[in-house]
């Protein structure tokens, strides 16, 4: 119980610190912070000084910084994060739209990676030391070294520009999802395969597998009933780590394929200096990643109590 409470405290503290740092962006970037904050409210970049003074009082920008932070945070919690400088749309709308796209992209890619990795990893473990294992291990190790900003243009060149069978950009049809998901799935696929193999090797060597075989179960039945289930736990943990990672890690793929997700939203906001969008996107991505990580830890601990004691003593 103490473990859960501690994780919760760390979670909340982290979110407060991150949100405070993000809140400070208008203050630590060059220029008058008040103008930048007012611009996110009234969306007129060319206010005269008198108007700025009026809004400064109106929005409490003459108050102490911590009071301003409390105000900003309570607005943010109610979903009011101001207006985007460039599109003049409320930031909340941009974020929720981008989040849905990125979540779809990340989850589809991870499922794809998982569906391919589990059988391949299991195969490598069963064929341990044989040619099949060597080939799978070598390929997955090489895949890790492939940058997605190299793979993506090559896929576009081959499948969109030369063969013309898939769209090169966009996010309208299921077909347009194929190339981005393939690109994004490559690295998790490699890691999942390696971890499945390692975990399966341990399970195959364990006494309960031999006991199952001794009871007269066929090899496929042993694998399905005892092998795969027991080797799944490390993989599941890794999947959730990757889910958090991909929410913030799909920036490059989203930019290359012109996908209107969180990553591209944040990237374009940084390029254009669109402070309200930067703030909202960062808080949102970090919050999601941390919540996912914490949930994984807590679930993992609930399933496997040996971790709990290990964590307390650490």
């Amino acid at each position: 119980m103490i473990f859960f409470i501690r994780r919760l405290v760390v979670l909340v503290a982290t979110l407060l610190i991150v949100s405070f740092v993000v809140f400070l962006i208008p203050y630590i970037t060059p220029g008058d912070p008040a103008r930048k904050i007012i611009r996110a409210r009234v969306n007129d970049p060319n206010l005269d000084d008198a108007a700025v003074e009026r809004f400064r009082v109106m929005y409490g920008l003459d108050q102490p910084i911590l009071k301003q932070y409390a105000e900003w945070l309570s607005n943010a919690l109610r979903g009011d994060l101001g207006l985007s400088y460039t599109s003049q749309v409320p930031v909340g709308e941009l974020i929720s739209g981008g989040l849905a796209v990125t979540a779809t992209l990340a989850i589809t890619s991870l499922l794809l990676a998982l569906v391919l990795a589990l059988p391949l990893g299991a195969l490598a473990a069963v064929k341990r030391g044989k040619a099949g294992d060597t080939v799978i291990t070598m390929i997955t190790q090489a895949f890790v070294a492939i940058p997605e900003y190299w793979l993506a243009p090559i896929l576009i060149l081959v499948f969109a520009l030369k063969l013309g069978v898939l769209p090169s950009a966009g996010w309208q049809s299921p077909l347009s999802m194929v190339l981005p998901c393939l690109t994004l799935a490559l690295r998790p696929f490699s890691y999942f395969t390696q971890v499945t193999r390692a975990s399966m090797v341990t399970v195959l060597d364990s006494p309960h597998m031999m006991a199952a075989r001794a009871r007269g179960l066929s090899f496929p039945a042993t694998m399905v009933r005892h092998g795969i289930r027991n080797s799944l736990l490390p993989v599941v943990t890794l999947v959730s780590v990757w889910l958090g990672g991909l929410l913030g890690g799909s920036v490059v793929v989203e930019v290359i394929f012109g996908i209107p997700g969180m990553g591209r939203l944040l990237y374009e906001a940084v390029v254009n200096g669109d402070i309200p969008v930067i703030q909202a996107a960062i808080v949102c991505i970090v919050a999601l990643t941390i919540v996912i990580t914490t949930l994984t830890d807590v679930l993992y601990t609930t399933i496997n109590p040996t971790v709990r004691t290990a964590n307390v003593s650490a």
Partner: protein
Amino acid sequence: MSLLDDPESAALNSTAKAVPAGGSPSQRGWTNLRTWPISLRVGVALLITILVILILTPWIAPYDPAAQDLANRLSPSGDGHPLGTDQLGRDVLSRLMWGGRFSVSIAAITLAICAVSGTLIGIICARRRGALDEFVMRVTDILLSFPEMIVALFLVAILGANYVTLVIALVIGGWTPFARLARGLALEIEPRDFIEAARALGCSKAYIMLRHVLPNALGPLLAHAALRFGHKLITVGALSFLGLGVQPPNSDWGSMLADGQPYMVRAPGLVIYPGLAIFITALSVTLIGRGLGLRRDRQA
């Protein structure tokens, strides 16, 4: 054998993963190439070739990387340009060689800062334990869950885009795996007899850390560093690809790839070669990391 005489050989006799330092049999084995796993041999050969080319670039590059030849744009390989020319008629091979110096050195500098600071923090935590250790470990928990790209974008928003920002962004989260690994290794080494012996001899804490704990933790740390290098190289390239890293007129492999993308139908090499360079370099170091791990497993 007296532990007081030779603390290092005590480490050798234990079953821990740490590689013993200084004149031990396993150390001497390094000169025998036959004990190297194939992945280690291939990785080292590739990496040395790449490094030699990059170091010798100012003398062996066939052209000035900035020299434009607008009459000869996007030409295919041949015609005195082994890998062709880019959209401004610049020699692709020369640009690859000069760009690689940026990519590899930024990744290496970042990695070195991460490895050194992380290792020191980890070892200090293991020695001190208590509240400091607890605090640092919680901080690593949190930093590990931050996506690197988001930290980088945040810093670019504040500090502007250049390679110093890039290094800072990658160091913020990058030291944490080293701190955790070093801490774990130090905790493993700490209760051993030769540490106790050194303490009994009156060695200071700092001396024990640097002379006994650190050398014994070095092997796994180096293997880990090798595995991380490829990742760093790819991330540096990603940020440059997005225009947030190395700024014009300089270019590295990531920015070359981005510059070449609009012309890739006419000159696919502009995209393929820089990516291939990143891939081969990252692969060579990954192979070294795997090889080091394999070698240690065989000897254990």
